């Protein structure tokens, strides 16, 4: 089985797994980072979205072996010095989550959206987060949270 060495949330990590293991399963099972959620497992729901070398990507559509040498950011990597990331604060402030299942994917998708478009319009935010499905239908609060995080940045 291949060895994998990668950086996850700033720390070097390594593991060994079959080539067919999906990145999301490697993160959850081998690295016990269960913040990244497994939803549809075919690239539709967006719950498993993480940052790969700074860009949002579905971790159910990548093999763990493909992440060898990559820098991965998961939801566990957003807090700094025990404080929530400003985007997480905005989600709390604007009731941008109910059950929380989609939240990790929403946060990492929104982070990448704001990186490439720091002051998006409401339409652009809606288009950006359309990459992630929220089954509590809480989109209104999520849009408000992303807009408020952009304004505060």
């Amino acid at each position: 089985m291949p060895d994998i060495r990668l950086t996850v949330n700033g720390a070097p990590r390594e593991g060994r797994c079959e080539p067919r293991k999906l990145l999301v399963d490697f993160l959850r099972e081998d690295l016990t980072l269960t913040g990244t959620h497994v939803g549809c497992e075919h690239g539709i729901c967006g719950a498993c979205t993480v940052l790969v070398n700074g860009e949002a990507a579905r971790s159910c559509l990548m093999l763990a072996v493909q992440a060898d040498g990559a820098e991965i950011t998961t939801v566990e990597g957003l807090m700094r010095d025990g404080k929530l990331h400003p985007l997480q604060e905005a989600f709390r402030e604007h009731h941008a989550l109910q059950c929380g299942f989609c939240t990790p994917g929403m946060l990492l998708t929104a982070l990448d959206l704001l990186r490439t478009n720091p002051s998006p319009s409401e339409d652009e935010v809606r288009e950006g987060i359309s990459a992630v499905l929220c089954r509590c239908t809480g989109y209104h609060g999520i849009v408000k949270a992303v807009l408020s995080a952009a304004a505060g940045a």
Partner: protein
Amino acid sequence: MKPPKFDYHAPVTLDEAIALLVRYDGDAKLLAGGQSLVPLLNFRLARPAALIDLNRVKSLAYIREHDGQVRFGAMTRQRAIEFSPVVARRVPLLREATRWVGHLPIRSRGTIGGSIAHADPSAEYPAVLTALDGEVVARGPKGERTLPPGALFETYLTTTLAPDEILTEVRLPAMPEGAGWAFEEFARRQGDFAIVGVAAAVWRTGERVTARLATAGAGATARRLRASEEIVERDGLTDAAIEAAARRASELVEPDSDIHASADYRRHLAGVLTERALKRARDTARA
């Protein structure tokens, strides 16, 4: 919902990748961005003996201007195309179409070569390749050949590429200065595959009008609408000529019915979207 077992290879050169294809003799799949292939693996609809991952073949990712064309290495990410100043300036139709490709996290992995080689008829890039009359380069153990879209796309999810060939480059002719363009698409949700999409470009050379039109999602492959183009090339970009071209588009397409839409509805959409795309292309064109 987990992939079946396969041998995994991550070559760093094209020659190694081709040698692996030869070795597996049709039983290997090339892995590009993985945004279509990995779901097929997860569902176990695809069970290749081996995956040959092209993501470490660095020589396949580039955007270059060459001889009136913009040339894309097959592994160029859709996200790189979306933000490329060369694409925005020289093939703005491709840039607009890219905004319709899946979602942001799909485009950060998905590639131009993968999308075209996958040959999903409802995908945007095959329609742009067809509208702009571009070509692709394929390389195999016997050498290299170039194919126009008509010689590449065979039917649903099927190309004429040989099992030991790799699509290495996509070439699009640069659009003339002042050309207008539009990519119009209808899908039920943002980011879904098109039920129907229409790529349009128009430009004027003196009095002469040139029009380019192709559909996505309205048949087994992307389809060039040459007879519709001829109507506006002959009669000019008037509302009446555009409406006639749109009616002709509905007649030209050969859609099938499926779970997403009936053939009649797709035919109707082909007309509506052709009219919208041509009008917007006309209105953004400069003399």
